[in-house]
């Protein structure tokens, strides 16, 4: 099937290829929205890619006070990793260093999964013997004394093995500014999709990579086929109208969440149109043999 054009934007006849991951989620609350976001942003810092960060994490959705267990503003944060052990380690390190430390914070399970990960049941040792265990309505909490009162933390949270990491699409435009406008619009739309995160800075990756490289030890390196400055030098995927490519990488709680996020993002880019945003949309894959999940772009069109 040839490439199609929707609203003046070329949609490549290709697909995104994604992988099975382990994921968990927590709900962080704080006295106000600012500090709920602050704790969530801090704990999801340096969590763009499993290649170098150990996990991929971001805020899934912000929660109004009516939707949190303690009636305060909150954020649902999702964390993805390749294995359960690494996910457990990242969860405890990040909550311990970034949420426990954040003023007025509390931390609750954000996922009911097939297995459990330790949360408060490990962090409670910070209490040095003064921690208090409370079971309220079938849920187990730990209360750890801290300098502004108590850190309340649910004992465990859920783990899902059905998560998907690496759903993606490329936003390709005539200029960097237009590419950024289109990518930002896509990220905003994906932000409304529950169960999906975009872990890169502001949800956008500008250094989409290929596997390996010419230097020993490089796990990933420049994707020269999509680098506009190399357009004439290498076998490029870019036509003369493309001067900037930005990638949106999506991790989802389920296969459906990734698909919904891709659809939402692509729909927004298409609606924005080629004059203000992207002229072409593509996606990254490894030939379809490595990833368990395939998202064909033509199935993701609005």
């Amino acid at each position, binding site marked *: 099937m040839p490439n199609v054009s929707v609203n003046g934007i070329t949609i490549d006849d290709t697909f995104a290829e994604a992988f099975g991951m382990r994921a968990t989620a927590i709900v962080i609350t704080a006295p106000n929205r600012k500090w709920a976001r602050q704790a969530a942003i801090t704990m999801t810092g340096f969590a763009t890619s499993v290649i170098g960060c150990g996990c991929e994490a971001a805020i899934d959705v912000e929660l109004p006070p009516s939707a949190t267990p*303690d*009636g305060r503003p909150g954020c649902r944060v999702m964390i993805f990793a390749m294995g359960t052990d690494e996910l457990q380690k990242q969860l405890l390190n990040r909550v311990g260093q970034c949420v426990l430390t954040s003023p007025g914070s509390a931390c609750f399970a954000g996922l009911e999964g097939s297995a459990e990960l330790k949360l408060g049941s490990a962090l409670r040792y910070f209490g040095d013997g003064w921690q*208090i*265990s409370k079971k*309220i*309505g079938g849920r187990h909490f730990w209360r750890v004394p801290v300098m502004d*009162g*108590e850190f309340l933390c649910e004992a465990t949270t859920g783990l899902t093995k059905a998560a998907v990491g690496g759903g993606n699409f490329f936003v390709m435009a005539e200029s960097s500014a237009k590419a950024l406008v289109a990518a930002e619009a896509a990220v905003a739309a994906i932000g409304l999709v529950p169960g999906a995160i975009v872990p890169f800075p502001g949800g956008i990756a500008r250094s989409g990579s290929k596997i390996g490289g010419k230097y020993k030890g490089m796990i990933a390196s420049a994707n020269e086929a999509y680098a506009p400055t190399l357009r004439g030098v290498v076998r490029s995927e870019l036509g003369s109208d493309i001067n900037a490519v930005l990638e949106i990488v999506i991790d989802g709680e389920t296969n459906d969440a990734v698909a919904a996020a891709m659809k939402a993002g692509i729909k927004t880019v298409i609606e924005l149109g080629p004059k203000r945003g992207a002229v072409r949309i593509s996606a990254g894959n490894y030939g379809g043999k490595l990833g368990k999940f395939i998202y064909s772009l033509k199935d993701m069109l609005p």
Partner: protein
Amino acid sequence: MKALTFTLVAEPPERLDLSPLTPERLAGIERRDIEKIQIGMSKHGSKVGDIFRVAGNDPLDIVFEGGSTRLDRVAEGMRGGSVRVVGNAGAQAGRAMRGGTLTIEGNAGPHAGSGMRGGRLEITGNAGEHLGAPLAGELAGMNGGVLIVRGKAGAFAADRMRRGLIAVLKGSADNAGSRMIAGTLVVAGGTGEMPGYLMRRGSILLDRAPKSLSPSFVECGAPESVFAAVIDRHLIAEGILKRPLLGIAPQKYGGDNAVLGMGEVLFPR
């Protein structure tokens, strides 16, 4: 299937032990055999058929129509299903329950919910002394589950409680939460003298300042408490209370420092 109903014919001539009449122990028993179960505790030796008119056939849904303070050990050790007493109950109602629901639409005698480990016991009237508490010689009292008293509770409510939730909504007598090991005791409507006397751990949550505390309790400030917010919301969601009990920053007293001292008494400032 219709609820298995025991209708009290007249005031019993003796104290009755109703512990054989639980969903587990009545499962698969014919009605005429149920009527032969001995429940009288004196030389009368009354049988079920002497005291109650039995109707219905669903042992998972048991109803005692008509109550008496002589109906002891209602639903003792029940693990599932529901038991409802329309009227008063005697001593040790719901003792050692592990699951299911027991509702007493009237008053309960002493030791209601004694040593219960699970399930839900609700008393719409008042409860006697030693609510949820251990019998003589036992180490721990209530060990899980939810116990709600819509009226008042007698002295030593939640004595030696170890786990679970007890809520008393119209006030308790002296020494509520004495010797608590852990768990949560909620008392709205005021407490008698010295709640939490010799408590080791656990939480006693009140709707007002206690009129006295053992001198070995110490004032611990009133920082904002997420725990208070979570338990307030839980109590409202469960239909136990209509309004928040503690608010966001309750006053805390810690104690009892005559023993371990890791318990707390919380109340709104």
